[in-house]
């Protein structure tokens, strides 16, 4: 569907006058090649699922989604964005998965006055001093998930925790996020190589440090590798494992299977949250795609819902950027995650939920909601933003 519309857009564009807000064009820049293209594909599915419910409209405006591939590479991502901005003249940009592409594209989006709704993790720079009226976030600031887990681990009275995150600057930021909320001692801090395959060495170090709990920030293939190997080393029963949202998300559960049972993580959304918006979303998703939604498809869905409400508020007149931005800030829509409003830096203030990996009635490995760890949580960098 979206390939054909991409062709139509290119042709129609050359002829129409520069400005007639009879439709809203969304640039969906995401990673479509390489190992992590799976989860970015789910984000697009969530977004398109919402459009199905509104008959392909946001507010009263028909929607046109143009998909581009950033190949998880800032250089290629920048060029794909320029195609969306200059040739396809998109009104809104969303969908980017990785922080290095986000940081490469965000300044260009601001410059060309395109509203950038980052539906994935918000790097600390964009939440802090380089925040901007044109940049919104519908997910969370990268360290929030670790902070929530830190709070929950302290609640559970763990005294001596081992930490593990990949050896890159963002990895250490996540560990600092955990340390902000965790009050106990750190048994050991291990920084494996990014893209590492075998964690037997690190698992042996954890066993030797004899912690009473382990906190891990990993994602994608690395998370699958670690969870599998941790369970096989027989540690899963002895030392409880806590992870960030992405470490135990749906894609990792599908890859790791039963090895993830009993592991706990904290997220701003879970499939079994019982609020009407979420129930409708999960039901529609399972009917359409025959599988449970993941955090990434939820992020796509919620971003579409936000846009729908904002376009309704300005009654379709999106060419008035200020009014459209104000409508977005108001965020008058019921999010599937529960209570939701924007902080001063346009990063969500929301509740965080602890969840454990268990087998559901049909024997499927799922995340089950435990309880709400914190309500109305704002990210730690909001104060640095002078918007």
């Amino acid at each position: 569907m979206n390939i054909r519309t991409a062709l139509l857009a290119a042709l129609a564009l050359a002829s129409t006058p520069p400005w007639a807000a009879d439709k809203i064009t969304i640039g969906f820049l995401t990673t479509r090649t390489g190992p992590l293209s799976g989860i970015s594909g789910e984000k697009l599915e969530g977004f398109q699922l919402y459009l199905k419910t509104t008959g392909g409209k946001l507010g009263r405006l028909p929607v046109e989604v143009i998909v581009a591939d950033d190949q998880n590479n800032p250089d290629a991502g920048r060029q794909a964005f320029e195609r969306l901005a200059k040739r396809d003249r998109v009104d809104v940009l969303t969908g980017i998965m990785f922080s290095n592409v986000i940081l490469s594209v965000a300044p260009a989006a601001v410059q060309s006055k395109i509203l950038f709704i980052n539906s994935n993790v918000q790097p600390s720079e964009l939440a802090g001093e380089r925040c901007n009226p044109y940049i919104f976030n519908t997910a969370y600031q990268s360290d929030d998930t670790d902070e929530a887990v830190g709070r929950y681990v302290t609640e559970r009275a763990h005294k001596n925790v081992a930490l593990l995150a990949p050896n890159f600057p963002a990895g250490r930021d996540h560990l600092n996020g955990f340390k902000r909320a965790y009050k106990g001692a750190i048994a050991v801090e291990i920084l494996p190589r990014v893209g590492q395959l075998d964690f037997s060495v690190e698992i042996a170090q954890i066993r030797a440090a004899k912690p009473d709990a382990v906190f891990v920030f990993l994602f994608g293939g690395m998370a699958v590798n670690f969870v599998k190997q941790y369970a096989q080393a027989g540690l899963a029963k002895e030392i409880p494992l806590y992870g960030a949202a992405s470490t135990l998300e749906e894609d990792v559960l599908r890859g790791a299977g039963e090895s993830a049972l009993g592991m706990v993580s904290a997220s701003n959304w879970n499939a079994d949250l019982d609020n009407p918006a979420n129930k409708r979303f999960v039901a529609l998703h399972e009917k359409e795609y025959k599988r449970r939604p993941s955090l990434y498809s939820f992020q796509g869905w919620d971003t579409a819902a936000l846009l729908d409400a904002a376009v309704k508020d300005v009654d379709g007149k999106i060419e008035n950027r200020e009014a459209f931005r104000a409508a977005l800030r108001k965020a008058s829509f019921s999010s599937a995650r529960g209570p939701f409003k924007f902080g001063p830096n346009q990063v969500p203030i929301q509740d965080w939920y602890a969840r454990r990996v268990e087998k559901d009635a049909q024997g499927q490995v799922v995340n089950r909601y435990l309880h709400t760890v914190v309500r109305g949580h704002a990210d730690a960098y909001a104060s640095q933003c002078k918007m």
Partner: protein
Amino acid sequence: MKLGATWWFGIVAVVLLVLLPPIASFTQQEFYIGVATRVLAYAIAVSSLNLVLGHGGMLSLAQGSLLGAGAYTTAILTVEATKDVTFLPGATSAWITWPAAMLVGALLGLAIASISLRTRAIFFLMITLAFNQMLYYLFFSMKVYGGDDGLGMAARSDLLPGLALENDTVFFYVALALFAIFTFVQHRLVHSRFGRVLEGIRINEPRMQALGFDTYRYKLVCFAIGGAGSGLAGALLVNKNLFVSPGLLDWLQSGTLLVMTILGGVGQLWGGLLGAAAYLVIEELLSAYTQRWQIGLGVALIAVTLYAPRGLGALFVPRRP
């Protein structure tokens, strides 16, 4: 001097490129000016690899790291200039940061080659891969310059008071001018005494040593010149995107540059432009239409290898005398 096919092809290519911006802005497709600028930047990098591989006979996987190092040099100097307290003398003028990028590329090239040249053929490929990854991890773990999240630049380097690089068309013509100069220098180089010695070394290195040439030093200088070219390409790329990330130094990037060089035609003067243009245009066109574009790219590369063994460059130019 009778203009050989190489020159005719060159003139046609340059004329087409000169006319591109006016055509693009007329049809409201300014986007393709940006694409062409990126092709020119890559063409310079591929031409310098062409010098190292085509004339120096050195199959290197280190070009990505040299290109990335040049980009980082320009970005760091520009960022340092905006900071008030700094130990590094910052500069935003292109007349300082771009030559600095070339110098860093040349020096790193010299350092890598001085050790790698002890090995031959496929071992040389692997040892340059090793150095490439060392540089990659160096920039990857430099938290102060953004580490893996990359480093942004506030604005493009300033060139001349009247000439603002912010304007994409101006930046395109600057890139085109640099590419033309680089190609002319490469042409002179290949036909100079130094170029002749390189060719002799590529054909029969032991005999060249018996004739009295210290072949090690010639290959070293050739690799350094290649490094300088890659550094310049890096400076252009970081200016175009106002952003650089360690991903630019990864070995897959070096691999892509190697593929472009082979695609364009090893040892062909216009191989760099052809290889870069072919690869990037295929990538741009195919990725717009199908998510499976990499299969198309793979099939195209195999087709070129089987049916145009000496690369695209050779299709226009008869075999060299």
